[in-house]
């Protein structure tokens, strides 16, 4: 499956729940590709194209406010 995933193009979808986001900046600073920025105290996607779907922002967001999905990964077959 890992193989299959690699072969596919990664197309990210990042959802930010601004009602839950507390603006801790963790996602912004720990994103290796600088995909995110802060705006009015909340995280915001600035460069979606750069996203490699590594999921690090989601992993460390303490507030369940950011969700990253690989759009090319079918929900059914995903982990």
């Amino acid at each position, binding site marked *: 499956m890992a193989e299959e995933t690699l072969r596919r193009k990664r197309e990210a979808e990042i959802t930010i729940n601004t009602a*839950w986001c507390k603006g801790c*900046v*963790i996602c912004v*600073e720990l994103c290796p590709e600088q995909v995110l920025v802060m705006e009015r105290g909340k995280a915001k996607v600035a460069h979606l194209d750069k996203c490699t779907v590594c999921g690090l922002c989601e*992993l*460390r967001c*303490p507030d*369940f406010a950011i969700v990253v999905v690989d759009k090319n990964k079918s929900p059914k077959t995903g982990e």
Partner: protein
Amino acid sequence: MFNYESYLRLDKFPLIWCSGCGDGIVLKSMIRAIDKLGLSKDDVCMVSGIGCSSRLTGYVDFNTLHTTHGRALTFATGIKMAKPRLHVIVVTGDGDATAIGGNHYIHAARRNIDITVILFNNFIYGMTGGQVSPCTPKGKRASTAPYGNFENAFNISGLAQAAGASFVARATVYNAVQLEKLIQRAIERKGFSLVEVLSPCPTAYGRRNREGTPVDMILQQKETTVSVAAAEKMSAEELEGKIITGVLTDVERPECREEYQKLIDSFRKEG
């Protein structure tokens, strides 16, 4: 497909925790671990004491119990002894578990009762506004240690080991993937299992001790910790001031409820 939401009480969100608090990262790791194990939500019972971390039980869609300060393990012991089929997980802070709750902590470990303890160590009393904890490192400031803590701190994992726990591990929120795996192993291991998670408290601890932003505090964990494997290759001087992460103990020992079941069964056979 895995999603956090099916394990959460979404109507209770947003979380009570401060912006940048590490506790949410631990919560997520716990949910992933439970999901990986495929436990039924009905069979999980999560018990907490009092403190910021202990508020966790309000957010998860299990059988949840938010007890009195320091006493989570006593309630959990009652639940596990009465209904052993439940997976009992205790959520507790460093103050809750090792200050007021220290006795129950060592006794639950001694009994090696099949409870998984996720101990959120933020080195401070968060909920009550930053008083010193038995885990506050010497010299660090707290609202009740304005000149720096003059007391020695506990090695709480070491304490659980000495008391008789089956599984003891230490983890960071920085390494949330390892954290998840350790929680998974802790739940799997029959007996008393502890995962001590270093969870930054930017509000009550970080600010007072000039530890920087939440991001700084998370990244600092990378610097101050070494894995068990790496530690083995290091000299005592090199290890000075370092915190060891990974599995510290993983042994099989007689488990309390199972031993008791043997007693019950001995009468069943007779009868």
